[in-house]
Structures are given as structure tokens and as C-alpha cells.
């Protein structure tokens, strides 16, 4: 830790978060709204195009479902632990600081910042179109979006809700994906439970390169289709669920399959702070992928930008099996790569009279992608949750992947990994194929499980 950083930390601490937001308005921006230049200290480099789609580190095999770490030779610049956390206080989320103070075994290894995210040309073109299109806007008080298509909708977000929509519509899973992940939680005593083995299919017509914005919105704006079929644990094999989200502001629709009766029924509207059953009570329905619900119960404020140390370029983390990943009280810090990046800071405060277990949330969203970090506080103002959605680009397809998250619950000491893919070694497949429209119907869904 050098003196300059210390001074900066002290300054930020004195002025509060707002001080760190000072960014020159005429700063050159990238099509998705990120600042092109590096920082003054040189600890964040200027953006130079990200990883090219020709990136091919040793061991890389196209369409194998695995992406070796192209920065495997990088060495950490420094390591933050509970002992020196205060020196980096202005660059860490409240959750990260609390974890470092709570566990002497926990650490944050900071690597050189690599702005690895890149987007396909057609997505970049769409981002520019969205920025220039006055009809690309939120509707129904932020419940939906219209006019925007195929790229970051609001490269110059004017408020918190627009910044959240940038995250919800980020190109972080491509147009379609097949992924195979296992959900694990670890309780405060170190007991580990594998609660779900999911075969996940995702598709977003928002990123369908073969349709126009008009065609997309004519169908209501089907931007999120997801089908999960369980292949484990034994008690859950053959169960499944289907989720459809539209941009026109209609409520999300979910269906579930009942083994034995072989029927698909619409599920009740599980939303807001309903805990996901497989998460050990840690993950709430509107916290899937940092945020995955409706914004109506909170007031959203775009605080600005700041520099923050967040999980980034964490391919090794993605490839770590559960045995090595899951330590008794926290995930294995040695497999995680952290970097200093600029993040959009969005604060959500529970509206007067509205009900939710989180009374305040602060999102730190990576300027180059939709991944990032969240802190959540309860009614008493106590830090209750930390969420991390690391960014590990699918470099050969230029997808800013942040498709898996982990959660720490400060009240119960339980932590949860939503999707560990390394145990089954089945890989992840992005923009691999297209399914027909009946795939995301109850019948199409029922065809994929016979139990």
C-alpha cells in the first residue's frame, strides 16, 4: 500500500461516497457507457478493445464448453486480508470488508486490471442506435422498456432504474445458452449441501440477430426465457421450471412440472424477498443474478461511478470443483481473482410503506459488463447480505459472461453458490443453437422430462 492510495482512501472516507463519483462529463465514453480512459494512477488501463475472438490460451478448444484462463500467468499485485483491509476501505464493498474482518482465512488477491470484455460489432452498433434513439426508453415507471434492442439500452443512464435495466439487458449470456450447474450451500458449521443439479437453457430474443426491434416488440419483448430441468439430487430428478419475462411490463410467468402427474402448471408469483428454496434461505427471488425482479418497491438512485475491487476474469473460479471451492465458512479465496474496476453505483431504498427484508441495497455494476457486487441491509441498518457475480468473458464469442453468483448471509453465516459447473464437467454452450418457439411453452418444457 503506497502513501498515495492511503491518502486517497482517507479523502474518500472524509467526503463520503459522492466524492468518488466525480468524473469529467466530457470523458470519452465507450458505446456501452464505460469510460474509455484509464485512471490517473494507472491502476485501471484504458480500454483497448478487450480480448479478441481469436484468443486461444493453451488448452482452449472451440465449442468444448470450457474457457481456460488467458491470464493464467498473471501474479497478484497484493493481497488484502482482515489485517490490512482498512487501507483499501474505499475500494471494497461493505460485504467484502465485513467478510475479511470476520474470517482471518479469507482474503482478496488483487491482480492487474484487464479490461477483457468485448462485444460483437452488431451488438455495439445496437448500443449506438439505442443511445441515439429517443424512443428507446423505460415504460410503466420502469416496469418495462420499449424501443431499445440488441445492446445496452441506456449507455448514458440518467437514473438508477436505467442503470439496473443495463444490467438486466446486458449481453452476459449471449443470445442463448445451455449450462449445467450445481447449487451448493454451506452452513455456519461448515456442513455442505448440494441442493440442485440444473440443466439450464436460456434464450433472449432481445439479442436475436435475425429479428428487428419491431419484430421483437410485436411479440411483447420476450427478453428472458429460461428452462431448468433437474438431474439431481435424487429427490428432485425430473422436476423443472420454466420462466418467461417480457419487456412490455406484464408480470413474469413461471411454470413448474409435477413428476408423477406429468402436467405443467403455472406457478404462483414468487417474487421480491421470497427465498429460493434451494439456497439455504440465502438467495431471494429478486436477487437472482444480483437483481432479477421488479423495481417497484424501492426508490432507485444512480449515485455515480467509483473504483472498486471486484471479482473479475475469474475463469479459474468457474473451473473449480466443489471440493476445492467450498471451505467451511467461506469460498476458497485462492481460486478467485479480483481486480480494480470502475463500477456504476446504484442505491435502492425501500419505499415508505413497502415491505421487503432488505431495506437498502447498493449495487456496484462493472462499467464494461453486467456483472458486479451487491450489499444489502436489513430494517435495522445491519449489513445482511453480500452478492458477487464475477465477470469471466466468453472470449471467442465476445460475451461478457457473468452467469453465476455467490451469496453470503451475515445473519445466518450461510453462503450459497448458485451454479458450480466444474463437478459435472458438462460445460457451458453459448450461442450454440436456436430453439423453436415451442421450446418455451409448457408442452415443450414437459417434453424434456418424462418423470
Amino acid at each position, binding site marked *: 500500500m503506497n502513501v498515495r492510495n492511503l491518502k486517497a482512501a482517507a479523502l474518500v472516507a472524509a467526503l463520503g461516497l459522492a466524492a468518488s463519483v466525480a468524473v469529467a462529463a466530457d470523458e470519452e465514453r465507450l458505446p456501452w457507457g464505460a469510460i474509455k480512459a484509464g485512471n490517473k494512477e494507472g491502476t485501471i488501463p484504458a480500454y483497448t478493445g478487450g480480448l479478441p475472438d481469436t484468443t486461444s490460451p493453451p488448452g482452449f478448444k472451440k465449442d468444448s464448453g470450457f474457457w481456460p484462463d488467458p491470464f493464467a500467468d498473471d501474479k497478484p499485485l497484493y493481497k488484502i486480508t482482515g489485517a490490512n483491509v482498512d487501507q483499501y476501505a474505499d475500494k471494497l464493498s461493505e460485504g467484502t470488508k465485513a467478510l475479511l474482518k470476520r474470517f482471518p482465512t479469507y482474503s482478496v488477491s488483487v491482480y492487474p486490471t484487464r479490461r477483457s470484455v468485448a462485444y460483437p460489432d452488431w451488438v455495439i452498433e445496437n448500443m449506438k442506435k439505442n443511445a441515439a434513439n429517443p424512443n428507446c426508453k423505460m415504460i410503466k415507471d420502469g416496469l418495462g422498456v420499449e424501443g431499445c434492442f440488441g445492446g445496452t439500452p441506456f449507455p448514458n443512464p440518467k437514473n438508477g432504474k436505467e442503470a439496473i435495466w443495463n444490467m438486466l439487458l446486458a449481453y452476459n449470456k449471449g443470445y442463448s445458452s445451455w449450462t449445467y450447474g450445481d447449487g451448493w450451500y454451506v452452513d455456519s458449521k461448515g456442513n455442505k449441501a448440494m441442493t440442485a443439479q440444473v440443466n439450464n437453457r436460456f434464450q433472449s430474443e432481445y439479442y436475436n440477430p435475425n429479428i428487428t426491434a419491431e419484430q421483437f416488440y410485436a411479440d411483447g419483448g420476450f427478453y428472458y426465457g429460461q428452462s431448468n430441468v433437474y438431474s439431481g439430487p435424487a429427490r428432485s430428478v425430473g422436476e423443472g421450471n420454466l420462466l418467461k419475462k417480457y419487456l412490455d411490463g406484464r408480470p413474469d410467468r413461471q411454470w413448474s412440472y*409435477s*413428476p408423477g402427474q406429468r402436467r405443467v402448471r403455472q406457478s404462483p408469483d414468487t417474487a421480491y424477498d421470497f427465498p429460493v428454496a434451494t439456497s439455504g434461505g440465502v438467495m431471494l427471488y429478486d436477487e437472482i443474478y444480483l437483481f432479477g425482479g421488479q423495481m417497484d418497491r424501492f426508490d432507485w438512485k444512480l449515485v455515480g461511478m467509483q473504483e472498486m475491487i471486484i471479482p473479475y476474469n475469474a475463469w479459474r473460479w468457474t473451473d473449480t470443483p466443489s471440493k476445492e471451492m467450498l471451505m467451511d465458512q467461506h469460498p476458497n479465496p485462492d481460486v478467485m481473482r479480483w481486480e480494480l474496476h470502475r463500477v456504476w453505483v446504484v442505491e435502492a431504498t425501500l419505499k415508505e410503506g413497502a415491505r421487503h427484508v432488505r431495506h437498502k441495497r447498493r449495487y456496484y455494476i462493472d462499467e464494461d459488463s453486467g456483472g458486479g457486487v451487491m450489499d444489502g441491509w436489513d430494517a435495522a441498518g445491519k449489513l445482511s447480505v453480500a452478492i458477487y457475480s464475477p465477470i469471466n468473458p466468453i472470449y471467442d464469442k465476445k460475451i461478457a459472461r457473468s452467469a453465476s453468483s455467490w451469496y453470503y448471509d451475515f445473519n445466518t453465516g450461510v453462503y450459497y453458490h448458485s451454479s458450480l459447473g466444474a463437478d459435472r464437467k458438462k460445460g457451458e454452450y453459448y450461442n450454440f443453437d436456436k430453439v423453436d418457439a415451442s421450446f418455451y411453452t409448457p408442452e415443450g418444457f414437459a417434453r424434456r422430462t*418424462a418423470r
Partner: protein
Amino acid sequence: MEESQSVRRGAGAALAVALAVGSAPTLAFTIDSGSSDVTMSLDTTVRYNAIQRLERREKGLYSAANDESQRFADKGDLALSRLDIFSEFDLNVRNLVGARISAAAWYDTNFPNKVNRDKSLPAAQANFPGGRWPDQTERYYEGPSGEFMDVFGWANINIGSTTLNVKAGRFVWLPGEFLISNGSSFTYGMAPNDGLKTSLSPGASAKETGLPIGQLGLIWQLTPELTLMGQYVAEFRASRLDEGGTFFSAADGGNALHAPFLAAGVPRRDAREGDRGDVGVGIKWMPDMLKGDAVSFWYRKFDDKNPSWANQVFINGGVPEAHAVYAKDIELYGLTYNGGWGAWSIGAEVNYRKNMPLASTGQYSNLPIPGMSRDLSLYGARGNTWHALLSAVSTLNHNMLFDSGSLVMQLDYMRLDKVTDNKALFNGDMSDVAGRCENNEVLRGCGTRDALSAAVNFTPTWQQALPSVDISMPMLFMYGLKGNPAAANAGVLPKESWQFRIGARLEYLSGAYKHQFELTYGTRDGKKGKLPGAAVNSYSGLANFRDRDYINFTYSTAF
């Protein structure tokens, strides 16, 4: 017969045990076939149940007609100590073709060797001469025994832009909107029901409580919005009901299809069963304007899987004998809706059934009876009926009392439109038989024109109440609001009959396992009272179980 049955029994049990033991070392596994195109999985559920009776016998519920059932377990006695194993094997080739086999095995170490008859009653009134259990009872209650459940193959076939899903073999398919019971659903009788599993193995999933029936099932999705469905059933299988002489049946012989005697001097003979050949066709429509909601229409023609006239007494030249009759050729027109309403998921159904078997009564002889039509031995009273259900599910978010909760509700309604055949056998006022059901219809067990009942299932949950332990408190309450259903198995509770269950469930998770422990208290009651001029009480519906409160312990896990 005896021998072949025991061989069959042995084979089934051996299979389930072999599947279970075979899978134990590797646990639940997805077999690595070396090809990502082929997946296989084998999973096994193990469940132990114990049930203890908590209440003393009620005098009015003790007679020659239910002495054996009452004496099966006295207050404080174990009524059940049973192990169930259920194994499932699935094969899937690229979601294009596949097969599934499941098998069940069970053993109740507590089951008595002999029927416990009241020896102070005349021997002639015994429902079980010699105190021997019928084979059926011994096999399904005591075991050790087993059977195959699902055995079918399936394929997804692309025809142009459409996809046809075909299933052939033994399986259960119940695509209705019911959540608690399907008596009011258009799916009534699409597959028989294993009522024994429901009673004897609390905690059994729908995969175990439905009885697979040999059929061809087609789901042909023409467009994302429009789907055609069809069913052809290639065999007859009857639902299983609680057997007489056990804790789970109110009566020794009545409605208990394998007790040798229905009543003193009335032996039970082979049931008059239905035939193969049920057909059903349906169309489901999910138009864009409904935003995810769906409506469907079904036509079915089928034979009843439940005994629609369980206690038919046939006077054959002066000698009475009893038969259970399964009604044939019921026609059904059904409409369903599934969708969302605010935070609720809603299901609704209305169906009209022609030639529906009605609650039938009395005896008949092989002599012609004026005013009766058709073959009495097969028909009983028939009529046209309306059935409707409304089901709803909602979730409750975190509040002061619990972390999360689920609420499941179902309303069941039936209405007798008209009696079409054998009116004189209808056990109701509309039979026009002088004096029958002229008052106290519910207490007399008479079918009424309308019947309505409600069921609510509420489960609050406390997640991580202890490390890796979720605690929940499932509660079930069912109540008859109006009348007594005119159709025998309409799935509507008689007025004032009710059932309440409350449990404490503890789920401990470790690795890929969940160990689930549950303690449940159950109680039932119904309308009870003296009919005009009667010296003793009459009991209707669940009042027959009002002295059988119980406590049930369940442990289950899967690997």
C-alpha cells in the same frame, strides 16, 4: 394361484431391493455412458412410517360391521410400522427417445398375522372367517412385496414444424387443474389411484400414489399456441381402496373390496370390472392475448376406476352375494383454465358427465323389476352430472411469524343434473322412492342435488432454523360445506365432515442428501346424530373415523 402370486411378489420386491442396493454404493447416479447424447439415472427413495392410534373406541362406532377394523389397533397401539422403497430408472437419448421403469417395495413388520375379531360376537357375523387376511390385504399391507410401477417408452417426433410426444406403456397422466384430489377434475378415472399408498405411506409422492395404467398418450403441439392431446387406454386397472379389518377402513366389509364377507351371510364375489378402451381427446389453447394463461377442452369416454357401486348386493335365486361394480361408458366434456391472478396461480375446471354412476343402494335380484332398464348388474343408478373445481396456490413472503409460506386451496363442487337410469336404485331423494332420504339426507348418507367442499393446505417454513435444518409446519384442513355428492366418488366431502392434519417437519441437508423427519397429528369428524325414531347414533362421512385420531412419524430420504 397362490404360488404364482407369491412368485410375482418375490420378483417385484427383489427388483426394488436390487435397484436400491445396486445404487447404494454409487448413490443416485447419472450413468456416464461415454456419450453426452445418452443419459441414464437411477434414484431411490426410502421412507419409514409409524402410525399410532391416540383414541379409545367410540361405542357407537363399534359393532359386528366394524369390530375387526376397530380392534386392529387400540388406543396407544401401533397401526403401522412400514418401510417403503421406490426406485426409478430413466433413459434419455438426446431428448428424442427414452424409457422409464420404476418399482416399489414395502414391508410392514407390525402387521398382525390374524384378523382381530371380537369373539363375543356370533361367529356367523365375522367378515373374515378363520381370522385369515385376504391375499390382497396381506400383500399390500404387510409384504414384504413389490411391484413395477411405470414401464413405458417415449419419443419426441418432429413432424414439419410440429412436435409429437408419444408415450406408450404403463404410466399415469393426469393433466388437470386439481391440487388436492381429482374427483371433480376432467382427469377423473384417467388413471387408477393407489389409495393404499396414500394411507399406508404418508409422504409418498404423486409418482407413487398414482397407479400406472397401460396406455398410449399423445401430445401433439401444432404451434406454440395450440396443442392436441389424446389417450387410449389398453387395459383395465382398478383403484386401490382401504381394506376392511384394518385401522384405515371404517368398516370391515362395506366398501372394502377384499373382505370375504360384506356382511353376515353375504359373501363378496369377483368385482364387475370395467374394460380396456378408454379414449380421451383434448385441445389446449394458449393464445398470446392470454399472456401465458391456457384453456383446454376435453372429451373422454371411459370406465370408472373406482367402484361406483361398491356394495352391490345381488340376490341370485334367493342367495345373496356382493359385488363391487365399476361403471362403464361414462362420457365427459371438460373445460379447464390455468393462469395467474395477481400473486395467485389459478386452476379452474368445469365438466359435464353423462351416464355418471350415482350413489346406488339396495339389493336387486335376477328377476325383472318394473321401471328398471338395462343390465342392473352393471349399471346401478346413472345420471348426468356437473362437476367443477377451483384451485389456487400462493406464496407468502417473510413476515414476523415465518420466513416463507405456501398456501394451496381447492374448492370442489358437484351438481346432479338429472337421474337417467335406474332411478329407484339412486340413494337420494331424487330417486322418488317413497320414504327414501326424505329428511336428514347428509346424516343418512344420501346423495343431494348439490355438494360443495373446500380444502386448504398451509405450510409456513423457517429456513436454517438450525444450521442446515429447515423446519416447516404443514397443515391440511378439509371441510364439507354443502350436501353429499350424488356421484359416489365425486371428491366432495359431505357437509360437516372435516379433516385436520398438522405436522412438524424437519429437513436436514447434507451433501446430496436430505433427511426428512415429520411428526403429524391427524383428526377427522363429521355429522353425527340420531335419526327420527332411532335409538342409536348415525355417523356420516368422516364421522366414522372420529375415534381414530392418530400420530404419524415419517422419515424419508433419497439417494
